[in-house]
């Protein structure tokens, strides 16, 4: 029996297990997936929790609901990958051999990387919303918060779901307005980027939205430390911002397994060919989702589009053909702007987010770089699509390759 081993049963790993089981004959290929946790989190839903729109039960399901028949599932921590021997060693010493390995171990927040971030005020006046614990703690905090300086700070790039902190700011504006206390809450968005976003047109559009919503912007802020006594954040350049409530996007790091295995860069991301999705160091290792170092967003939509390419290229490798799939870095993000409206961006390695309609040129129904009610429904509907179609690796009516039709240059 040949062996395909998948490390990580999050969005990317689960999709790959479903896709590959369909391709590979069960009498010839054994597929095994390893993850230390039994719960699957719908991570895009975390953003909604602090504002009471979703609760914990809306964003969790057992991982086992999403594995296809005929895949071995092992719930265990991973000690290390021995790439030269094509072995993976689990925490308890069990050795798993593989012919092909898919690394889908994702990335996670590392608040300990910023001095003082997870100090005495952590989960008292300082929160993250990228973990279920942080999102729930913040929801409870907001229930009785009297207002003051609300600071949203991004520690450094890259981080998961690049638009989420902006959505958080828009939601906060709407939330405190609806509670009749917006005049008591001063919202400031503090970012290491030079504006609201990276690429010019989206930055302009989103920057204008911040302004309209009376949200202050502090750009080019590279956080050095959090001062818990004086409740302020300080950057390397000497800028200081005071907070009453700090909502932080901590640094994101890849899994420590990569460090132990000598497979990661200085942030534990695995060096990966951005088009083929093959590890740059080992031919029989492929990397998908947040675990890789490819220069695109760390987001489920990217993993989804990349999964179609990886499915194709892994079959090429298995059948000894040259790679035919080439990933273009496609990302597609719904951005909640508050009050039941949203906007949408669609981009790849080479093309910045542009205005237009999506997915059908001229028709939509979604508007790119436009604020509309329909875009919000897209995001709301997406949770259903995620649980029922996407994780199971079924086809979606959206091309994995970014399309220019319907876009205005």
């Amino acid at each position, binding site marked *: 029996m040949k062996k395909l081993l998948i490390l990580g049963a999050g969005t990317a790993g689960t999709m790959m297990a479903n896709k590959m089981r369909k391709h590979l004959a069960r009498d010839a290929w054994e597929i095994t997936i390893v993850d230390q946790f039994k719960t699957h989190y719908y991570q895009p839903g975390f953003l909604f929790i602090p504002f009471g729109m979703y609760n914990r039960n809306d964003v969790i399901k057992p991982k086992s609901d999403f594995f296809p028949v005929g895949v071995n599932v092992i719930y265990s921590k991973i000690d290390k990958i021995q790439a030269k021997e094509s072995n993976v060693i689990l925490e308890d010493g069990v050795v798993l051999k593989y012919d092909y390995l898919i690394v889908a171990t994702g990335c996670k927040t590392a608040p300990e990387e910023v001095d003082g971030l997870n100090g005495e005020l952590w989960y008292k006046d300082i929160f993250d919303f990228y973990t279920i614990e942080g999102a729930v703690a913040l929801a409870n905090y907001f229930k009785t918060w009297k207002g003051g300086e609300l600071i949203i700070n991004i520690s450094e*790039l890259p981080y998961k779901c*690049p638009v989420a902190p902006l959505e958080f700011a828009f939601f906060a504006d709407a939330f405190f307005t609806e509670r009749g206390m917006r005049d008591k809450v001063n919202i400031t968005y503090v970012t290491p980027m030079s504006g609201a976003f990276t690429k010019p047109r989206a930055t302009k559009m989103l920057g204008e939205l911040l302004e309209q919503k009376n949200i202050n912007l502090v750009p080019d802020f590279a956080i050095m430390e959090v001062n818990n006594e004086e409740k302020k954040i300080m950057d390397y*350049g000497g800028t200081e911002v005071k907070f009453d409530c700090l909502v932080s996007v901590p640094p994101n790091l890849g899994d420590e397994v990569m460090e132990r295995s000598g497979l990661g860069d200085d942030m534990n991301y695995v060096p990966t060919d951005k088009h083929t999705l093959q590890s740059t160091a080992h031919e029989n290792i492929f990397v998908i989702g947040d675990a890789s170092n490819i*220069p695109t967003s760390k987001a489920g939509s990217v993993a989804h589009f990349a999964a179609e390419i990886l499915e194709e290229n892994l079959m090429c490798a298995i059948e000894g053909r040259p790679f035919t799939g080439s990933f273009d870095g496609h990302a597609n993000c719904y951005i909640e702007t508050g009050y039941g409206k949203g906007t949408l961006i669609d981009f790849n390695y080479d093309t910045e987010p542009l205005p237009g309609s999506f997915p059908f040129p001229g028709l939509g129904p979604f508007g790119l770089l436009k604020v509309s009610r329909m875009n919000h429904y897209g995001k709301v509907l997406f949770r259903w699509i995620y649980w029922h179609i996407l994780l199971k690796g079924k086809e979606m009516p959206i091309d994995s390759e970014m399309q220019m039709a319907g876009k205005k240059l």
Partner: protein
Amino acid sequence: MATKNYGGVSVDVNDEGYMTDSSQWTKKVASGIATDEGVVLTDKHFEVIDFIRTKVADGATLTIRGINKSGVVNAKEFYQMFPGAPLKKSTKIAGVPKPESCI
């Protein structure tokens, strides 16, 4: 494609003033760009620039974190040496592309 002249050497630059051909870079060119950026280069600056050029030649992504761990300079000193936006300024002076924050 625009060109700029630094101390008698003509180099190709993009519309943001970043050199497009790293092989045209010399220390003299670096000093010229630094003057435009309001930075006076010391030996320490050139150590950092060397580190940046080597990293970029290896295909690595430049980050403040990477600079901080470089052993050449820590993040705080880096900010003092290239005030304001140190990564943008230092890469411009080092004749390498502006670091893309890829999100």
